[in-house]
C-alpha cells in the first residue's frame, strides 16, 4: 500500500494520470473537466462549421449556380471540407472527450495535470483548421475521408499520439481489477487508429504506392475509420451508458466478448468492398465481401445485448434525453450494418454502387449511429464534469427531435434517390434490348430528392445550433457548483446513495 501511495504522489507531481483515491466519480470528473470541456467546445464549433458546409454543398447539388463563381466554394472543395471538418473536427473531438472520460471513470483514475493534454488538443484542432483551409485553397487530395492535404497529417498524428498515450496511461493508472467491455472497445480503437492513419498517410500522400494499391489502402483506411475507430468508440459508449441510465446490467453480457473479437478480426477486411468491380484483383474484393457476411455475428451480439436491455427497462428511466439519443444510435447501428451487408452483395452492388444509396447508408452510420451516441453521451458527461445542470432541459428535447427528423429525412431522401439512380444508371429498365436512360434524364429525376436533402440539412443546422447553445450555456452559466446540486447531475441511484 505504501508503494502505491508513493507512486501516486510521484505521478501526481509529474501530472500523469493516477488512481483516484475516492470511490465516487467526483474527483475524477473534476480532473477530467478541462480536457473534456476543450474537446466538447471544439467539437461543437466544428459541428456547426461542418453543417454550414453541408448546407452549401447540398444546395449546390440542385442549384449549381449557387455561389458558383467563388472558386474556394466550388462543389468539389466544399464537399471535401464538409467531410473533413465533420469527421476530424466534430467526430474526433467528441471521440476524444468520450474516450478520456470513460476510461478515467472505468479505471477510476484521475486524468492528472491536463496542460499537456490541452496543448495536444489545440494542436489537433489547429491541424483540422489547416486542413480545412488547405482543401478550400485547392490542396486537397480528393480522397473521401482523407481530403486534407499532406501537411495536416503529421500535425494530427503527433497530437493524436499524445492524446492516445494519455488515455492509455489513464487506463494503466487505474485500480479497477475488472475490465469492462467498454474499456476493451476503447483501448482497441486507440491502438488501431494510429496504425491505419499513418499507413494511409504514408502510402497515399507521403510516398504514394503504385497504381491501384492506393485504392486498396484508401478503402482499407476509410472503412477502417468506421469499423475500427468510430464504431468501437460508439459501441463502447452504448455499453457504458445503457446500464448507467437504465440501472440494469446488459442482457446476455457474456456474449459481448465474442462480438468484440469477431468485429476485430473481420472489421479490417471489409474495406475491400469499396472496390467491388474495380481495378483490383478479384480475390481481395471477394474476401472483403465474405468478411462483410461474417460481421453479422457482432451485429447480432450487439442487438442481443442492447435491445433487451432497452426494452425491459422502466419507462420512467427511458424518458431521459441521453437515453433517447443513445437508443436511436443503437438502432441505427444495427440497421445501418444490415443495410451495408446487403449493399455489399455483388448483385446488389452492380446496381447501387456509386449512387446516393451508398451515401444514405454512410450517413446513417456516421450521423444516425455515432453522432447520436456522441450527443447522448456528452449530454450525460457535461453536467457531471462541470457540476452544473442544463438551464433549459427542453432544448435537449428540441435537439433530439430535430436531429432525428433531419437524419431520417436525409437518409430516406437519399435512399430513394439512390434507388432510382441505380436502376436508371446501371440497368436497362425497359428490358434487355432497350436504350440506356440518358444520363441527364437521371439527373433531372434526382432533383426533388436532392432538394429534400437540403431541407433535412436545414433542420440539422437548427439541431446543431441547439447543441451549441446547450453546451455553451451550461459552461457559461453561473449555476451552483457544490455537490448538493440538483439530481440531474447523477443517475437517481447515485443521488440516493449520497
Amino acid at each position, binding site marked *: 500500500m505504501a508503494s502505491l501511495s508513493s507512486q501516486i504522489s510521484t505521478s501526481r507531481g509529474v501530472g500523469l494520470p493516477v488512481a483516484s483515491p475516492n470511490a465516487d466519480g467526483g474527483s475524477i470528473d473534476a480532473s477530467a473537466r478541462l480536457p473534456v470541456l476543450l474537446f466538447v467546445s471544439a467539437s461543437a464549433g466544428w459541428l456547426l462549421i461542418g453543417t454550414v458546409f453541408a448546407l452549401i454543398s447540398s444546395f449546390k447539388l440542385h442549384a449549381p449556380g449557387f455561389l458558383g463563381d467563388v472558386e474556394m466554394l466550388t462543389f468539389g472543395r466544399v464537399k471535401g471540407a464538409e467531410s473533413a471538418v465533420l469527421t476530424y473536427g466534430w467526430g474526433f473531438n467528441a471521440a476524444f472527450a468520450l474516450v478520456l472520460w470513460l476510461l478515467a471513470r472505468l479505471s477510476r483514475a484521475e486524468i492528472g495535470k491536463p496542460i499537456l493534454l490541452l496543448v495536444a488538443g489545440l494542436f489537433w484542432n489547429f491541424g483540422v483548421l489547416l486542413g480545412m483551409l488547405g482543401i478550400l485553397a485547392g490542396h486537397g487530395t480528393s480522397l473521401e475521408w482523407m481530403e486534407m492535404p499532406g501537411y495536416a497529417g503529421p500535425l494530427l498524428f503527433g497530437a493524436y499520439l499524445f492524446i492516445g498515450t494519455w488515455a492509455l496511461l489513464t487506463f494503466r493508472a487505474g485500480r479497477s481489477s475488472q475490465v469492462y467491455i467498454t474499456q476493451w472497445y476503447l483501448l482497441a480503437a486507440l491502438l488501431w487508429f494510429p496504425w491505419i492513419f499513418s499507413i494511409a498517410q504514408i502510402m497515399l500522400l507521403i510516398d504514394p504506392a503504385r497504381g491501384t494499391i492506393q485504392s486498396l489502402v484508401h478503402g482499407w483506411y476509410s472503412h477502417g475509420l468506421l469499423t475500427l475507430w468510430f464504431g468501437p468508440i460508439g459501441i463502447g459508449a452504448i455499453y457504458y451508458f445503457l446500464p448507467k441510465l437504465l440501472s440494469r446490467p446488459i442482457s446476455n453480457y457474456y456474449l459481448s466478448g465474442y462480438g468484440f473479437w469477431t468485429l476485430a478480426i473481420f472489421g479490417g477486411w471489409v474495406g475491400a468492398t469499396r472496390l467491388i468491380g474495380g481495378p*483490383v*484483383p478479384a480475390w481481395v474484393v471477394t474476401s472483403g465481401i465474405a468478411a462483410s457476411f461474417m460481421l453479422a455475428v457482432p451485429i447480432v451480439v450487439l442487438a442481443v445485448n442492447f435491445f433487451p436491455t432497452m426494452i425491459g427497462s422502466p419507462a*420512467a428511466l427511458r424518458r431521459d434525453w441521453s437515453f433517447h439519443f443513445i437508443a436511436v444510435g443503437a438502432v441505427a447501428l444495427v440497421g445501418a450494418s444490415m443495410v451495408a451487408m446487403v449493399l455489399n452483395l455483388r448483385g446488389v452492388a452492380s446496381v447501387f454502387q456509386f449512387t446516393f444509396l451508398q451515401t444514405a447508408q454512410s450517413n446513417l452510420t456516421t450521423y444516425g449511429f455515432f453522432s447520436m451516441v456522441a450527443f447522448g453521451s456528452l449530454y450525460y458527461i457535461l453536467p457531471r464534469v462541470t457540476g452544473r445542470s442544463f438551464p433549459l432541459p427542453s432544448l435537449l428535447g428540441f435537439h433530439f427531435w430535430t436531429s432525428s427528423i433531419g437524419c431520417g429525412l436525409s437518409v430516406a431522401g437519399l435512399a430513394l434517390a439512390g434507388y432510382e439512380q441505380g436502376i436508371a444508371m446501371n440497368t436497362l429498365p425497359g428490358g434487355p434490348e432497350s436504350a440506356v436512360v440518358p444520363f441527364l434524364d437521371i439527373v433531372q429525376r434526382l432533383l426533388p430528392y436532392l432538394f429534400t436533402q437540403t431541407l433535412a440539412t436545414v433542420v440539422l443546422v437548427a439541431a446543431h445550433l441547439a447543441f451549441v447553445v446547450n453546451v455553451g450555456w451550461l459552461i457559461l452559466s453561473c449555476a451552483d457548483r457544490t455537490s448538493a446540486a440538483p439530481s440531474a447531475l447523477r443517475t437517481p*441511484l447515485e443521488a440516493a446513495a449520497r
Partner: protein
Amino acid sequence: MSAGPHQPNGLGDGSDENLQSIHADLLKNKPEPKDGYSVLPLFLLGLLSSLVFVGSIYFVHYRGGIDPMVYDERFDPKTAAKGGAAAQIDPIAAGKRLYNQPGACVTCHQANGMGIPGVFPPLAASEWVFGSEDRLILLVLHGLSGEIKVKGNTYNGVMPAFGLGSGYNWNDEKVAHVLTYIRQEWGNAAAAVATAKITEVRTQTAAGRNTPWTAVELETIP
C-alpha cells in the same frame, strides 16, 4: 429532467465500481441452466458456423484463382488456360458494338446505315462499302476529307481517323470487326474482312500515312 420514482434493479448504488463488478460476476457465474439448452448461445454458434460455411464457399467460388491478374471474380485461370477457351469473339457482334459506340460511326452514319441526306453518306448499298477492300480499309484507318460521291450524291465533309495512332486508336482487330459488320448489315452482302488484311494494308500499302485521304486519292487505289 428528473427521473421520478423507480426501483433500482441490479446495479446497486449505480457507481462505476458496481457496474464493473456486477458485469464481471455475470461473466463468471452464468445464469442457472433451465430445462434443456439455453437458446441464445446455441443460436449464435449456429449463426457463426453457417456464416463461416457460407463465407468460405463464397470465397472459394469467387476467388478468381487468387491471381493478381484476374479482375473478374467468375474467371478461373486453371480451366481457362487449357487450350483456347479464351473467348471466341463473334466479329459481327463485336463490330456492331463498336459501330454503335457513342461518338463512333453511329453518330454520323446512323443506326440504320442511311446517314443524313446531304450531310453524311449512307453505308447501306454503298459502293464504297462493298467495293474495293483496300479503299475501305484506308478510309477508315486514316479518315477522309473533302468531296465524295456516294450512290450518285455528293457529300462534302470530314470523317475522322479510327486506326492506330488516331484519337480513337482502334487496333486492327477492331477495324476488321466493324468493317465485317457493315459489309453484311442493311442488305449489304460483301465478304468479311480479316484482321491480317488490315495490318497488311496499314503497314505496307499506306505505311507512314497519317493524314486523311481525299476521294480522288482513294480512287487511284485498286
